[in-house]
């Protein structure tokens, strides 16, 4: 009897935490479906409408906020950042896993220190520099600075995946007459493909969710959803329903991707420090 009570209490506590975790999202859904004239008059009883989504996605009067464009911008800069990081990060991760050479550890730790550096240390000088170079408010400028987020993640985690591979497999390929390059592309890379997929998605999520870079280094052309979502709160009458709809639209991609990489999250989030 006592056992059952404890079990019920434990499940109750768990459910309580999850109510706290899920309520804000549920509430945003409710807010986003409210008609503008009932925003503050009712809490739960109203005739739901999709007007807020129409407005946010620009299928009508868009309140002067080109949110759909911000959405495309987020896609472009996040994909660009992940692509660039993969292209230069995979070979580096492989080298760091397979060889011990002068400077490799220092490079790895420099990369790791990016992860913990206060972003503004680099952004403020970049803000000045980008104005001079014409990179302010451009895709290239954003993709470049997002490397701070995506590259350390990809290099550290891919190194741990490459290290887990037994070198004998590649050696066998070399004895069979493969060149090093072929061994890397035809043997090593296919074996870590799940790791690459997971770390790419995670890097994409972090790039997508970044706020401080686009806030300071873009103004309109390359602005992203995280900054754009704040624009509906401006003005003399903050538009709660539009803000809620914008918030929900902007969390859809990261949430969808996150569901597909649950298994790899532990290693990814801890930079390989914890393997499940």
């Amino acid at each position, binding site marked *: 009897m006592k056992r059952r009570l404890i079990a019920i209490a434990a*499940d109750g506590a*768990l*459910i309580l*935490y*999850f109510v706290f*975790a*899920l309520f804000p999202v549920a*509430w945003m859904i409710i*807010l986003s479906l409210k008609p503008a004239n009932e925003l503050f008059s009712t809490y739960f009883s109203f005739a739901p409408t999709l007007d807020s989504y129409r407005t946010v996605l620009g299928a009508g009067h868009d309140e002067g906020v080109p949110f759909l464009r911000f959405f495309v911008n987020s896609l472009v800069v996040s994909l660009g950042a992940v692509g660039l990081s993969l*292209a*230069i990060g995979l*070979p*580096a991760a492989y*080298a760091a*896993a*397979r*060889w*011990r*050479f002068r400077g*490799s*550890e220092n490079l790895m730790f420099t990369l*790791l220190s990016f992860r*913990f*550096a*206060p*972003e*503004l*240390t*680099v952004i*403020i*000088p*970049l803000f000045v*520099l980008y104005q001079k170079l014409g990179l302010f408010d451009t895709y290239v400028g954003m993709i*470049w600075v997002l490397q701070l987020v995506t*590259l350390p993640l990809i290099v*550290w985690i891919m190194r*741990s995946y*490459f*290290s887990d591979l037994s*070198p004998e497999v590649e050696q066998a390929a*070399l004895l069979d007459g493969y*060149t*090093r390059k072929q061994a890397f592309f035809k043997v090593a890379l296919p074996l870590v493909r799940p790791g690459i997929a997971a770390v790419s998605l995670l890097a994409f*999520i972090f790039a997508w969710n970044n*706020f*401080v870079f686009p806030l*300071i280094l873009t103004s309109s052309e390359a602005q992203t959803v*995280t900054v754009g*979502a704040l624009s509906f*709160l401006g003005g003399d009458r903050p538009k*709660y329903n539009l803000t809620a709809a914008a*918030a929900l639209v902007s969390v859809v991609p990261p*949430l969808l991707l*996150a569901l597909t990489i649950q298994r790899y*999250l*532990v290693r990814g*989030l*801890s930079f390989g*420090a*914890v393997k499940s």
Partner: protein
Amino acid sequence: MSSPLTETDHGAASHGGSGPSARVVPRRRRALRPYLLIVPALLLTGGILYPFGLGLYYTLFDFAASKPRPDMVGLDNYRRIFGESSFWDSAWVTVLYAVGAAAVETVLGVAVALLLHRSTRVGRVLEKILILPLMIAPVIAAIMWKLMLQPSVGVVNYLLKPFGMGGVQWTDTPAGALLSSIAVDVWVYTPFVAILALAGLRSLPVSPFEAAAVDGAGWWFTFRKLTLPMLWPYVLVAVIFRFMDSLKVFDIIYALTEGGPGDSTVVLQIRAYLEAIRFQRYSYGISYMIVLWAVVYLVTMVLVRYLGKIQNRAAEVPK
């Protein structure tokens, strides 16, 4: 468990210095290869380190939008910062925020992990949605909470009305604003701690727990003497990440309180933002960041060293 933070070059030790020996390529080219692979990453690292170095250089001048021809002022910027109460106020708020957020997230995260580890039917269903808040951009989370915490029309006060607290001014008092920001941080990042702690719980050896059960040890004793010490290396990784990240909090405060009311939630990164971007005193703003960066760097070193010690000790526990 292996740790990239403390271990050097795992894996390479087992196969010597320069990769698997293949007699296909002449020796000299083999020695060069890792460098060729790593050059692009080096270039990019340089591309990031350059603005950092530039920033460091700027702090030695009085560079601002109002001064197109800055003068060299040496360490004056730093001297001024340390002499100002606004710096110490910011530092104090930052530390309060980081300690508060990391502490609550650790306790709550470990509790959630312990509850999920029991693996009841309810738990298995809930575990699938555990990471949801963590994947939402912190700035979006702060926007959501801002709408909910609105004193007059927000849903939180509406739900509290039956309990006689329908008029709480959540973000309009200094203490309330700080606590609300920490609450948003807790909402977003508790799953982070929970996920790592859960991975730890699932990798713990079974035999000590069986022995404790045979000896009739109580739940609390088992938790304190067995679970927590063995789990600590995992939890510590989470604590380091959370503490370091909250020292440089920006998004949540920016969206929720903008540093207000007054200056009460102006943490160091917000202060640097206001100085450099809003008032365009670049040198001064960067100086704040260099100080924060130095602190973060030192604290990380200390914590990572401690983590290494703990992990070595954990490795000695017979499985």
